[in-house]
C-alpha cells in the first residue's frame, strides 16, 4: 500500500513537471511581448532585462500596426462569433425539432444532406461559397453569420436531432392537450430541455468561429473588415520586416479571452468537445 502511494506521488510530480513545460509557450509569448525585437530574435528564452524591456510599447504599436486598428478586428471577431453561434443554436434546434418530430421523406432527405455535409472539407466549397456570399451581399460581419449557419448546420442539426429523439413525446403531447401551439411548445417546453445539448453545440461553434481563418478571409471584404486570425496573418504575411514584438503583444491579447472563457466554462467545454468528437 505504501509503495503504491509513493508511486502515485512520483507520477504527480512528473505530470506537474510536464504541465509546466506545457504552459511554457504561453509564458514565452507573455515574456517576449515586453521585449525589443532584437532580443526576441536572438534571446527568445531570456527574461526581459533592463536594456531589453520596453514596457507597453509593443502593445501600443500593435494596436495601430498596419493601418488597421486591432480593436476593430477584436470587435468584429466578437460580433461574428456571438451572432453566428446564437443563430446556429436557435435555427438548428428549431430545424432539428421539426425533423425529429415530423419525420417525413423531406425531413429524412434534409437530415442525410446535413450528415453528408459534415464530411465535406471546406476547400471543396470555398471558391463557389465566397462567390455566392459576394453576390448575395453576405460579405459583412453582420451577414456572415448566415454563411456560418449554412456551412455549420450539419453538425448542429445532427447533434440536436440525436438529443430530441431521446426526449419522451408525452411531455409535448401534454403541452398540446393543454392548448400549447407548436411555437410555444418549442420555446417553453422543448428548448429548456435541450439545454445540455445547446451548451455542447454552443461551445463547439464558439471555438470554430472564433478561430476560423479561411472562411472569413475569403468571404469578408478585407479592406473594411478583419477578424483576429486574419489580422495576425495579415501582419505577418504582408510585411517584409516583421515586427515580432507587436505580433507577440497581439497574440497575447487574442489568447486572453480564450483562456478566460476556458477557465469560466471548463466543465462545459470539455464535455461539449467530447460529445462533438464522439458523434462527429
Amino acid at each position, binding site marked *: 500500500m505504501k509503495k503504491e502511494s509513493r508511486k502515485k506521488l512520483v507520477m504527480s510530480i512528473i505530470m506537474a513537471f510536464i504541465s509546466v513545460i506545457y504552459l511554457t509557450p504561453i509564458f514565452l*509569448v507573455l515574456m517576449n511581448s515586453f521585449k525589443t525585437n532584437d532580443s526576441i530574435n536572438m534571446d527568445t528564452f531570456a527574461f526581459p532585462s533592463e536594456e531589453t524591456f520596453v514596457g507597453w510599447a509593443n502593445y501600443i504599436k500593435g494596436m495601430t500596426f498596419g493601418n488597421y486598428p486591432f480593436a476593430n478586428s477584436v470587435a468584429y471577431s466578437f460580433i461574428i462569433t456571438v451572432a453566428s453561434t446564437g443563430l446556429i443554436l436557435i435555427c438548428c434546434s428549431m430545424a432539428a425539432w421539426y425533423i425529429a418530430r415530423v419525420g417525413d421523406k423531406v425531413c429524412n432527405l434534409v437530415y442525410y444532406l446535413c450528415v453528408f455535409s459534415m464530411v465535406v472539407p471546406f476547400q471543396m466549397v470555398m471558391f463557389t461559397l465566397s462567390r455566392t456570399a459576394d453576390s*448575395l451581399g453576405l460579405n459583412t460581419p453582420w451577414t456572415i453569420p448566415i454563411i456560418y449557419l449554412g456551412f455549420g448546420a450539419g453538425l448542429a442539426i445532427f447533434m440536436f436531432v440525436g438529443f430530441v429523439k431521446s426526449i419522451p413525446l408525452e411531455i409535448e403531447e401534454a403541452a398540446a392537450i393543454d392548448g400549447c401551439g407548436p411555437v410555444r411548445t418549442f420555446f417553453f417546453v422543448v428548448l429548456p430541455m435541450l439545454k445540455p445539448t445547446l451548451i455542447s453545440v454552443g461551445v463547439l461553434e464558439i471555438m470554430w468561429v472564433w478561430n476560423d481563418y479561411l472562411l472569413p478571409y475569403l468571404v469578408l471584404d478585407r479592406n473594411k473588415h478583419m477578424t483576429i486570425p486574419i489580422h495576425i496573418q495579415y501582419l505577418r504575411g504582408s510585411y517584409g520586416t516583421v515586427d515580432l514584438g507587436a505580433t507577440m503583444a497581439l497574440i497575447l491579447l487574442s489568447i486572453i479571452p480564450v483562456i478566460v472563457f476556458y477557465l469560466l466554462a471548463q466543465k462545459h467545454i470539455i464535455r461539449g468537445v467530447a460529445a462533438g468528437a464522439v458523434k462527429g
Partner: protein
Amino acid sequence: MTALNSKLIRRPIQRYVWLFLLPTFAAFCVGFLYPFFKGFYLSFCKFRITKDATFVGLENYKIAFSDSSFLYSFAYTAVFAVVSLLIINVFAFIVAYILTQNIKGANIFRTVFFMPNLIGGIVLGYIWLMIFDGFLTRYNTAVVLETKYGFWGLIILLCWQQIGYMMIIYIAGLQAIPEDMMEAADIDGATKWQKLWKITIPNMMPSFTICTFLSLTNGFKLYDQNLALTNGRPFTGTGADQIKTTQMLAHNIVEAFYASARNRGPGQAKAVVFFILVAGISVAQLRFTRSREVQQ
C-alpha cells in the same frame, strides 16, 4: 420513429414549416448545397470566375494529377498524417491512463493539457515559429530553411494542440470501463500489466477508433498551422517545377485557386479529389465502428 409520433404533435408542427425548417434550409442551400454542387460541376470546367466557365470534361483532373507539386503535397500530407496520428495517440493514451489512476492534481493536469486546443491555428503557428526560431537561431538556421525542421516543427505543434483533445476522449473511455470487470480481475489475482492488456485496451477499442480517424482527418485537413508556420518553405525547383517542400494538401489546393488566377479549374478538381479522400476516410470510420458494434 414516425410511427411513434402522434397526430397531435405532427400536424400542427407541419403548418409551421416556414418558421422551423425553411430559414435553416435556405441558409444550408446558400452555405453548402449550392456551392457544393456548383463546385463539383466547375471541376469539369475551365474558368476564372464562375460566370465564364466552359466545359472541358476531365481536362482539369489530368492537369491536377500531372502537377508535381500536388502529388508531392499529397504524399507529404499522407506521411505527416500517419506520423502525427501515431505520436499524438500514443502520448494521449499514456497521459489519459496516468490521469485516471487517482493521482493528486489530476484535474489540474487535465485542464492544462487541454488548454492549447482552444487556440486557433494561425496563432499557434506564430507562437511556435517564434520558439523554434529562437532555438534554431543559435545554430544559424531557421524553421523555414530546412524541410525536416518544418515537418517535425509542425508535428510538435500539432502534438501540443491535440494531445489534450484526444486525452479527453480516452479519459471518457477509460472511465466507462465497468468497475466489476476490474474487481473480478483483482480477485483472480491479475497483475497491473495483465489488467491493462487484457481488460483496459480491449475495452478501449471504440475510443481508439474515434481518435485514430479524428487525427487522420485532422492531419489531412490541416491548413492554418501549415500556413502560419512555414507557408510551404523551403522551395525547390523553379517555375512550373517548383515544389514547396513543406506544403500540405489543403494549402496546395488553396494556392491553386488564388495564386494562379488564369484557370481555377485544376484547383477545383484537386478540391474534389481532396473531398473524396476525406469523405472516404469518414465512411471507412463509420463502417469500422458499425462492424465492431455488431460483434459486441
